[in-house]
């Protein structure tokens, strides 16, 4: 057993170091080169991964955007150009019946200013015509010039010349005229009650 162990000691004893010349440097050089290669390979992989993700993003974006343009072939019928019809305007005289002897005053068709209407009212022969002009002047003051003071004055003159019939409300009355009519009516009723 002892001899056997001695033989084992001999067989398994550490071998004397016998370095082959140049092996150490060669191994170091090769491992360093491999290390540098691995480093660049890692960088290349990272760059490739970034590029792949970028390309994938572009691809997905392009794919998700759908069709932007589509070529559609439409059959075109060859037609002979037709002459464009010319429109001619022909003046035809039309007879319009005109009411004669009407009680309503014939108002001028042209548009007058509120001041002109007021002058016409001053120059009118009868109270009814004057009242009508005053009312139109009031409307003009109210709607075109927003001159409430003159409008109220003209409406007041209209109501003074119109008498009791002028106090009745009409669909075409402005809000100011309606208000003045109501006030005049109440004043009149109130005056009667006080007198009685």
């Amino acid at each position, binding site marked *: 057993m002892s001899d056997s162990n001695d033989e*084992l000691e001999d067989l398994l004893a550490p071998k004397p170091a016998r370095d082959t010349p140049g092996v150490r440097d060669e191994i170091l050089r*090769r491992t360093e080169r491999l290390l540098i290669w691995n*480093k660049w390979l890692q960088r290349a992989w990272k760059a490739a991964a970034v590029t792949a993700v970028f390309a994938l993003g572009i691809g997905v974006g392009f794919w998700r955007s759908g069709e932007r343009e589509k070529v559609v072939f439409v059959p075109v019928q060859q037609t002979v150009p037709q002459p464009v019809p010319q429109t001619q305007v022909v003046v035809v005289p039309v007879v319009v019946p005109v009411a004669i002897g009407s009680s309503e005053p014939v108002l001028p068709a042209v548009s007058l200013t509120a001041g002109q209407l007021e002058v016409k009212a001053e120059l009118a022969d009868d109270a009814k015509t004057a009242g009508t002009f005053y009312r139109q002047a009031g409307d003009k003051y109210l709607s075109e010039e927003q001159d409430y003071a003159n409008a109220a004055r003209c409406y007041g003159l209209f109501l003074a010349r119109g008498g009791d019939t002028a106090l009745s409300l009409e669909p075409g009355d402005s809000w100011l005229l309606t208000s003045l009519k109501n006030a005049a009516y109440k004043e009149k009723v109130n005056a009667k009650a006080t007198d009685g």
Partner: protein
Amino acid sequence: MTNGDTWRERATRDAVLAGDTGAWRLWFDTHFERLSAYVQWRCGGLRDLADDVLQETWLTAVRRLSAFDPAKGSFFNWLCGIASNTARNAIRTRQRANLRIRPLTPKDDVPSADASNATEKAERVASALTELPDHYEAVLRAKYFDQQTVEQIAKARGESLKAVESLLSRARQAFRDAYEKFNV
């Protein structure tokens, strides 16, 4: 291995993985001689085989460096593991190649007394170590290569003296059997 060693080896590993050749050179210089001696022992003193195994071990270490975990063991032990596997593969390849060689004449079959006897012995040692399980190889390495006492081995392995002596005895017997097996 202390915690400081673990952290130092981890830092070196990370530096080398980041491409720091200076860190690699430091590591290489620290372990080259000892690993070279181990590989020579593992290859039974066959110089050409040891050179091939040593080179392949270092190249494999660079390729698989990311797999090295300092928490599981020291860098040198990791290198020894690679060297052991590399030596095993190289010796088996060498055995297959030897089997394919047939002497031309019966006279050529007789080896010369001086060199071939030593070479044959070295090949048998290397082949016998290849046949051993890892734990047998480890305890024989501690005993004969590192020249540790049984007490030191027991302390390092965290086992009792009896257990280590028993293990050593079984490892020796396994080696002898393997060594005799290759005495063809």
